[in-house]
């Protein structure tokens, strides 16, 4: 028995959950990106640190999400912080790898031209390397964001979860309309956010579209 009429009656609650979901994702990807960018700069400068840093991010990535949250709860409680620590740590591997790959993709002759013309190291990074790494960075952001949108669901178990909350409550009260609504809304959110990132990426890289005379 699915009470579909639950959905129109609870649109406000669904929308609030959706916004919540988006915020949880935004914080996770935003903080994850900031940390990854800082790590990528370090790695770019001191290449030998890449293996240990990527290795650590890789280990974080392999920890099952439920286990990680359960592990954190005694320290940080059933809180937003607990949720975000977990979510952020899952973005690191993807974002770090893509930012580093993006920086590596800048051709040696472009680097040499920039250096030879008198760009300082900082100018070279901000004006040449980072812009040219954008396509790969955006690719990384897309994967990290879509993954995080899925993972936010799990944080419902520690009291967060956005649309995950809606689904969890649906299970507990055998309200399958809520379960379906939560699932569909999550999928739609993932698709819309992904498309938005694609569009942003295209706006940020006008040169990549200009091919052929």
């Amino acid at each position: 028995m699915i009470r579909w009429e639950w959905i129109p009656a609870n649109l406000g609650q669904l929308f609030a959950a959706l916004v919540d979901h988006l915020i949880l994702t935004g914080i996770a990807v935003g903080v994850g990106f900031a940390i990854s960018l800082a790590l990528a700069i370090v790695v770019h400068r001191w290449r030998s640190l890449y293996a240990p840093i990527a290795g650590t991010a890789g280990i974080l990535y392999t920890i099952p999400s439920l286990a990680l949250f359960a592990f954190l709860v005694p320290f940080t409680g059933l809180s937003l912080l607990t949720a975000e620590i977990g979510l952020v740590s899952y973005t690191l591997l993807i974002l770090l790898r893509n930012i580093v790959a993006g920086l590596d993709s800048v051709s040696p002759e472009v680097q040499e031209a920039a250096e030879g013309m008198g760009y300082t190291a900082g100018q070279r990074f901000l004006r040449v390397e980072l812009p040219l790494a954008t396509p790969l960075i955006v690719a990384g952001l897309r994967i990290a964001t879509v993954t995080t949108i899925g993972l936010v669901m799990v944080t419902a178990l520690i009291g967060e979860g956005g649309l995950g909350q809606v689904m969890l409550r649906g299970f507990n009260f055998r309200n399958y309309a809520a379960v379906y609504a939560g699932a569909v809304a999550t999928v739609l959110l993932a698709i819309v956010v992904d498309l938005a990132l694609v569009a942003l990426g295209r706006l940020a890289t006008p040169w990549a579209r200009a091919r052929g005379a």
Partner: protein
Amino acid sequence: MTPEATRRASTVEFRHVTKRYDARAKDTPGAVNDLSLTVPAGKICVLVGPSGCGKTTSLKMVNRLIEPTSGQILIDGVDIMTRDVTELRRSIGYVIQQVGLFPHQTIGENVATLPRLLGWPRDRQRAKGDELLALVGLEPDRYRDRYPSQLSGGERQRVGVARALAADPPIMLMDEPFGAVDPIVRERLQNEFLRLQEGLAKTILFVTHDIDEAIKMGDLVAVMQVGGILAQFGPPAEILAQPASEFVARFVGADRGLKRLSLTRVGELELRPAVTARPGDDASDVRRRSAEAGTPYVLLVDERDRPIGWIAIADVPATGRLAAEAASATSPLLSRRTTLKDALSMLLDADVQTAIVVDGNGRVEGLVTLDLITDWMRAASRPVEVAAG
């Protein structure tokens, strides 16, 4: 010439410059061994040699992309190691083979790279960009807003040269700048660059592995051999006429006589005078002048002294007037800037003995004959006094 581009140039001096990549082995590729040479202000010095001879290393030591192991490089007498590296690099134009244009910036932005780094106002950056694009033969309105990926290899090379000129540097470093384009485009870029340099008179260090390019582009040529040893340094004519070693002789090639022909221009020869006549001239007077000059052919020219064709004196009537129709065969037309190699080639192609030299308006200036060229070759192949490099 452009208002902001000045004929500013500096002297570049290498003093016992050595670069070792491996402390034990002297001959690692790219090593430079006790290089001393001076490039006078406003000259093009070409560093040429086989791969691994250290020519690119030598170039990159000037803008400190590579630091020497020992020795000094001086610009206008000042040791470059005492200068701020960023400021030094911004005062030196740098052009590389793969061009290294910034793919994410438009052509206009690429050319204005240095003005932007130097913090010029935006409108001045743009004006400078447009000016430089026009200077290298790219119409600003067509190219300014394109991206490098939308340009051909030759166009990209020109943008690379324009970008290097943006801050009006007294020195330009060019590392195989025309190496990545096909021979026809290369030839055109070389000619354009030489014409540009006539106006700019920068001090240019130019690296190539192609001896023909070195001879064509260089006021001075430094031939280097593996181990970073300077095998010979001097004007191209001297290197062709008097190779300092077995290595240099082999490197410049067995056809160095022909190469010397490409170094000399028609204007440097003492042209033979032509006996000219106009349609309507008195035939007997023409016969008399021809006899005085001792030549059996008269060159018929129009009212502005432009050649119409030759008349054999046997075909000139004893009396009456010359008719334009009497002119039969014509000859290849040369300018004073034609190289002897091209002149010779045109004579051979046309199967004639004589070519006509005309000025920019097509007026006859004189004649070049096959004999004239062979006489020049004979004279030039005699040993000349040359100061040891």
